[in-house]
């Protein structure tokens, strides 16, 4: 056979596991290294925002966004929430165990088109995983881009991932970080969800109680020479986009990474389409303008 078999996973080893959150829907970040160094180099040569399909042999496959930036070479990181058949088993694995991986798939973020822009990374819950890959890419290539900002929300402070990493970035002043939670905790300044524009706070305040969408409004994220990367639960994306629209953002400035049930990852099995667009190969990254058009063109 003289063409590549895209269904065969490459074998990789888990070299590190970080327990990001605990509980029923815990999140763990797995660092994996391809056994074949040449294949690892091929994976290193990718765009942020691309995805991979991980195999837990005997259980099945699932597609995940690669949550490490391509600037972090020699490995791949995936932040996985414990949801079902494949992820439950994955969460039981230990450092040294092997998994399968195929990819990288998808279009990734068009980072070459973002030169000198201020970038707002807006993430909710597990949506931070794909955002992290492009955020770290932008930070590692800092001189090519404008001011980076992160607004990251979750249900509670216990549900926020990448604590150490984001704390460190904040300390270094590498990126303007604001975290938000839904239910008030001591030290997390409440923002009135009904009147976020009226919020007054010291610019040094970085922990808020309020939805991500309201924090966006309270922060008055400026659309001038800027773009936004949004990922999270559907309601969070919807409301955050509405907030940005109120602040004068246009649809083409907003980048999203979509997800759908996937099996093949290569545009053959017919499952992940929105109209004539396959999220696995044509996406998962789209601007909001493109998403609106896709929904309209169905």
């Amino acid at each position: 056979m003289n063409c590549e078999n895209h269904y065969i996973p490459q074998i990789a080893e888990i070299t590190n596991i970080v327990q990001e959150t605990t509980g029923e829907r815990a999140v763990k970040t797995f660092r994996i290294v391809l056994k074949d160094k040449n294949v690892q180099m091929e994976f290193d040569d990718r765009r942020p925002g691309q995805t991979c399909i991980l195999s837990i042999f005997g259980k099945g496959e699932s597609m995940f966004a690669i949550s490490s930036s391509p600037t972090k070479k020699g490995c791949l990181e995936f932040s996985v929430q414990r949801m079902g058949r494949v992820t439950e088993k994955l969460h039981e694995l230990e450092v040294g165990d092997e998994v399968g991986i195929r990819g990288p798939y998808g279009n990734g973020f068009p980072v070459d088109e973002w030169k000198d822009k201020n970038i707002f990374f807006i993430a909710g819950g597990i949506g931070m995983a794909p955002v992290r890959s492009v955020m770290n890419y932008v930070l590692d290539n800092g001189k090519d881009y404008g001011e980076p900002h992160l607004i990251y929300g979750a249900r509670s402070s216990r549900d926020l991932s990448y604590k150490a990493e984001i704390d460190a970035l904040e300390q270094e002043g590498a990126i303007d970080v604001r975290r938000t939670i839904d239910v008030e905790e001591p030290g997390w300044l409440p923002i009135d969800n009904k009147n976020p524009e009226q919020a007054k706070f010291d610019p040094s305040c970085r922990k808020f109680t309020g939805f991500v969408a309201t924090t966006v409004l309270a922060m008055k994220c400026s659309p001038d020479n800027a773009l936004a990367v949004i990922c999270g639960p559907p309601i969070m994306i919807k409301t955050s986009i509405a907030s940005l629209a109120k602040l004068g953002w246009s649809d083409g400035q907003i980048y999203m990474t979509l997800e759908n049930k996937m099996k093949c990852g290569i545009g053959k099995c017919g499952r992940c389409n929105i109209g004539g667009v396959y999220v696995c190969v044509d996406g998962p990254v789209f601007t909001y303008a493109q998403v609106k058009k896709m929904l309209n063109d169905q």
Partner: protein
Amino acid sequence: MSDEIIRAEAKKALRDRGLKCVIGWSADGTPFFAETEEDIEKLSFNKFCANNLVPYLTQEIRSQRGKTRDGKEKIVKPVGIVVKGCDSKALLLLLNENILSRKEVFIIGIPCTGVADRHAGGALYRKCIKCAMRNPAVYDVLASEKVQEDTKDYSEIEAIEKMPAEERWKFWKDIFADCIRCHACKRSCPVCYCDECLLDPTDIAIKPDTTAEEKAHRPRWVERSVNIPENLVYHLARLPHLTGRCVDCGECERVCPQRLPLRLLTAKLEKDVKEIFNYEAASEEGQKPLIAMSCMEDDNGFIM
């Protein structure tokens, strides 16, 4: 003549009983959901009205059930249905099993002398020759005069029973080799009403709060692979769930695109249930389900 009665009764019930709709057939024999008096004018009955409409009745009633935001039970509007003899037996079974309640349904019965494939001209389906349930077993109104019942013919079943084991095994393997697991049989079956079928790997009910454990540890009784062993499991595990419930309406065989003679199984099941338990599914209103009738006198010889 019967069309006029069906339409008149349907319109009357739509008005007087506040029906959500009346499920019947169009003149070309396809299932039709009549919601207005204008719709009802399209209802008709002829020999091409082969579909058993009871699965749609279950669909229309169940989709109305549930709780409102305030936690109150939603109001279920009754649904009308036109049923032939075989259809009505299935409906009676669902009533006896308390899946549907009598006040939720308005039944227009139509005695039937046999139905035919609308795509294949006029010959009646095999099941209709020598049918013993031509007249509806349960109804609010009848749309025509009752007709003469026949006695059911089990000679095909008896011929298979007489086959030596080797030959019988080959006979059934041959049949199940042709199954493509499209599930048309299960979907058209009026008594297969489970939201989630343990024999259908495409049909798992999950909710937002279903835990990872539940999803991970749910057994896969049937794999997606289509081959004789898996097909056997599908059919021969579905059957015991129909024991004393299947009324042999024949929809499974009618809809099977591979033309598997599934009534050889359902009729055999019906025969066994009669002979072993002296029980006929849906033989009267209020009848207890067979599986609820186990007693000390049952033959337990198979256990030891």
